[in-house]
């Protein structure tokens, strides 16, 4: 693990709130999103989806659709190859059902036609012979023996006997002896919690344009968080070599983790191959809700023991997550994250993933953590109320710190939890008076963060400007941050650098934009690519001056002799070296590729004030402050935006957002009218406080900031509701009907 990357330094570029490079294109409508791609002769692709939650597909008659004038290709699961690998097969089967439709909205066939009206008409002509099967959409029902089985034979060996075949995996983390710890507690609270599935709610629906030519090459333009992973999946599904499939990521209108896999991309490719023409598929909002990744929905039991002075003696959690109709590992992350904020002697978490007839889970900002930490932070708060203790003091007393053996195994290096809690405690918000009927809640949050495969090219142009080529779609300001880090390292101004996101044929593999990894990991690769370019530029200066390359160093954007013994030469700036590069050895570039380790974990603390209308059960969020450790905020405005965005999504999750299934197993609210994300007028200004506790694993101390912010709102709001209305809810969302019922209304 690389924990010695960080060097303290004075920053000139990093930390500036510079103009964002995508701003003008986005506000003028010029930015090219997924649906903006076009190609000559392009066909319209449309997908037929199952109206049943669970049904065997006995047969599909596509003959009438194929005979319709203007239809150029019809596709079913039978057109796609059998896959050996479980993971690839699940992705493929989710894109196009094979033997069974596993959830309402599961794709069962697709058409490509000359226009949308013809494509729609063709879908109506496809006859699917369904044998409707019993379905199950609730995790607590699906886990019981005797529940309808979604997929047979998917349980791993570690699943205990006696559970439904829907249980696909089991995990366990922790240390110590919880039973002994509980025995030492003055009070033990054990509670059951449930959280609804929520959708990432990105504004841009999935869109893809595929063009497969007769010589076997293919181009794919799509809206994704990871063009390289799209290539991996699509090449496997299409039986293509990676070199023959070029994937270009569009500008992206939100992802939040939900665009880290494929849904329509292989379908567009397969239709294009069959039709011999380019095919574009754009999802409707209804399709986005029914067939792309929501989160897991969960059922959790948490038990925590505490002494009367606020020391936690033991903690335990049982987590039952359902990632829909396919095996899903998110419960492992929930189980690992649950107690990460605490320094515990006795702690244990157990997790089970359970199949249900719901769409396949896709990642959503800190996947798995908001749900388990909501349950833990609710119980901690109840214990604080029981003993009359200050909730921040209790968390400080038990906080994980440098040297803590975490509840999931590793020992923490420098982390920012205590500093974040102390900042929250001394902030004016925490001591501001409340009116009668108002309540204040707090919660901690945590996310691991990730590094991963990263590959960056940095080119020094002859006019003294710099181009950075990276491979991660920019969903949160990474282009600005990468340019800032390149400018910092090279000693030039930010506006001399332009960063672009390359297609899969232009750069080595980059992991998906996920795990809050890009500013950290791609930033690290950029800094090292810049150092490589600096090494080359020092060499060129040495050549011009006729001295050894080792006798030249880089200072304030220029090559200078390393010391008095090196000789007396005036500094040569980057622009001066670049201008003569063709005479000194050719173009100048730096490159770096690495699988980055050392992503620093990130902690956050949220404070929220709410008021519950006791006659309607409606909760109004009055004031909200986010405290989060960013390691080093490369572009503070973007960092604040991440903190605010996470908080807002968490507020929606806490109060109104949920997947609602009817008794028929169909999704009742596949649209933004009844899937209620907060609108601007629902929210107060989300205040932010950035903490900077440097990550030892990054040259500038950067930690990922994208995900932690969605973790604390769930419990913070529940804790505030408890103090406003005197009721503790244990199920999300805390929608008005549910709150009014709890109030006895």
């Amino acid at each position: 693990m690389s924990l010695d990357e960080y060097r303290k330094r004075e920053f000139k570029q990093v930390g500036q709130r510079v103009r964002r490079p995508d701003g003008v294109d986005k506000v003028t409508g010029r930015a090219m999103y997924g649906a903006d791609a076009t190609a000559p002769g392009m066909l319209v692709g449309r997908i037929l989806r199952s109206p049943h939650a669970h049904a065997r597909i006995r047969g599909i008659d596509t003959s009438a659709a194929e005979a319709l004038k203007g239809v150029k290709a019809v596709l079913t699961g039978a057109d796609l190859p059998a896959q050996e690998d479980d993971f690839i097969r699940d992705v493929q089967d989710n894109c196009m059902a094979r033997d069974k439709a596993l959830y309402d909205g599961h794709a069962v066939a697709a058409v490509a036609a000359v226009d949308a009206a013809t494509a729609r008409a063709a879908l109506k002509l496809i006859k699917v012979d369904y044998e409707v099967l019993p379905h199950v959409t609730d995790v607590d029902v699906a886990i019981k023996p005797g529940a309808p089985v979604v997929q047979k034979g998917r349980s791993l060996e570690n699943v205990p006997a006696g559970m439904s075949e829907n249980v696909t995996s089991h995990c366990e983390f922790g240390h110590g002896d919880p039973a002994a710890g509980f025995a030492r507690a003055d009070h033990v609270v054990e509670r059951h919690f449930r959280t609804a599935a929520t959708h990432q709610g990105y504004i841009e629906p999935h869109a893809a344009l595929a063009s497969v030519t007769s010589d076997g090459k293919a181009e794919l333009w799509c809206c994704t968080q990871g063009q390289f992973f799209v290539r991996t999946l699509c090449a496997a599904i299409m039986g293509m070599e990676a070199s023959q499939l070029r994937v270009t990521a569009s500008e992206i209108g939100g992802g939040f983790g939900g665009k880290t896999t494929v849904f329509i991309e292989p379908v567009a490719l397969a239709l294009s191959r069959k039709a011999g023409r380019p095919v574009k598929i754009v999802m409707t909002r209804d399709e986005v809700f029914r067939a792309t990744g929501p989160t897991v929905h969960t059922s959790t039991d948490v038990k925590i023991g505490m002494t009367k002075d606020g020391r936690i003696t033991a903690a335990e959690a049982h987590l039952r997550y359902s990632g829909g109709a396919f095996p899903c590992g998110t419960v492992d992350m929930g189980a690992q994250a649950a107690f990460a904020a605490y320094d515990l002697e006795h702690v244990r978490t157990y997790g089970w993933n359970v199949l249900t007839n719901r769409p396949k889970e896709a990642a959503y900002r800190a996947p798995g953590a908001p749900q388990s930490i909501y349950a833990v932070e609710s119980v901690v708060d109840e214990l604080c109320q029981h003993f009359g203790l200050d909730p921040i003091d209790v968390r400080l007393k038990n906080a994980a710190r440098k040297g803590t053996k975490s509840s999931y195994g590793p020992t923490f290096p420098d982390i920012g939890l205590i500093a974040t809690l102390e900042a929250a405690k001394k902030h004016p918000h925490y001591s501001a008076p409340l009116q009668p009927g108002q309540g204040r809640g707090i919660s901690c949050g945590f996310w691991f963060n990730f590094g991963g495969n990263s590959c960056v090219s940095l080119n020094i142009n002859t006019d003294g400007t710099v181009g950075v080529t990276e491979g991660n779609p920019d969903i949160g300001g990474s282009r600005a941050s990468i340019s800032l880090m390149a400018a910092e390292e090279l000693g030039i101004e930010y506006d001399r650098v332009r960063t672009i996101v390359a297609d899969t044929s232009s750069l080595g593999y980059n992991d998906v934009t996920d795990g809050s990894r890009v500013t950290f990991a791609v930033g690290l690769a950029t800094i090292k690519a810049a150092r490589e370019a600096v090494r080359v530029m020092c060499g060129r200066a040495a050549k011009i001056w006729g001295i050894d390359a080792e006798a030249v160093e880089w200072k304030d954007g220029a090559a200078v002799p390393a010391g008095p013994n090196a000789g007396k030469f005036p500094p040569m700036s980057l622009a001066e070296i670049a201008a003569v590069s063709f005479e000194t050895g050719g173009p100048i570039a730096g490159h770096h590729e690495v699988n980055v380790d050392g992503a620093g974990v990130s902690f956050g603390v949220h404070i929220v004030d709410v008021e519950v209308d006791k006659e309607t059960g409606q909760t109004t969020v009055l004031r909200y402050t986010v405290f989060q450790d960013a390691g080093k905020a490369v572009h503070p405005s973007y960092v604040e935006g991440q903190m605010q965005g996470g908080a807002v999504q968490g507020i929606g999750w806490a109060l109104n957002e949920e997947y609602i299934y009817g008794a028929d197993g169909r999704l009742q609210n596949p649209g933004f009218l009844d899937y209620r994300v907060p609108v601007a007028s629902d929210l107060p200004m989300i205040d932010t406080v950035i903490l900077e506790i440097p990550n030892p694993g990054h040259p500038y101390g950067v930690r990922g900031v994208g995900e932690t912010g969605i973790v604390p709102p769930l419990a913070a709001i529940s804790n505030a509701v408890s103090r406003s209305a005197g009721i503790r809810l244990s199920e999300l969302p805390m929608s008005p009907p549910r709150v009014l019922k709890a109030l006895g209304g």
Partner: protein
Amino acid sequence: MRYLAATTAREAAEALAAEAGVTRVLAGGTDVLVQMKAGLVEPDLVVDIKKIPGIATITPEAGGFRIGAAVANAVLGEHEGVRALWPGVVEGANLIGSTQVQGRCTMAGNLCNASPAGDAAPGLVAANAVARIAGPEGERDCPVADIPAGPGKTTLKKGEVITSILLPARPARASDAYLRFIPRTEMDIAVASAAVSLELDADGTVKAARVVLGAVAPTVVVAEDAGRTLVGTKLDEATLAKMAKACEAVCKPIDDKRGTVAFRTKTAGTLAKRAALIAYARAGGAK
């Protein structure tokens, strides 16, 4: 699909009557176009009524106002005369959709869409508004209360089009108010709603009251008993509690994704109480 921009009400009515297939009347289009885009309806004939002379105007009539069927709710909301006379009707109409939708949507359209949760209907019914209807056989007037027949259904006959709505005159010391419950603060559909229209005596005693509930039954519900409860009182707490109970008694809501039976019933009473107090204050009742 055929599109006809009618230039007279009779032309619109005759075209709609003559069409054997599915027809839709287009005013603002904020329901029709959304439903077409979602594939919920594929009309054979769409008749646009916006080109009919006078259909987008507000005209004083007999101390009240005649509101053309194509008057956008944003226009209604800027009309000082209507706002002063029937503020509750206007606030209901102005709650529909977003700012952009307000620029297109109409009260007549909201009525014809016949959602039990339509925000314009309760206020119009509380106001005893009257719709003017053009049909193949000529014109007729019909109380707005008699237009809704159930979710998505109206009592309008084939070929009939609402051309205007008359908000009647009212005495001094009278006003109205509309409140709805939504889980958000805007861009939503009522889970329960209540319109209350009051007339007061010189001393602030309620002389006449009409309480109308939305989203708690297949159509808007006139809560007759609730209205009677208020008459002869100055809206003391006991009266309001009794009125809320009377509202609850006439609720026949459904359990669905937007709310439970219990929640809708309780909330309708709460909203009626709150709306009554607002209407009372607007009518000049001291509270």
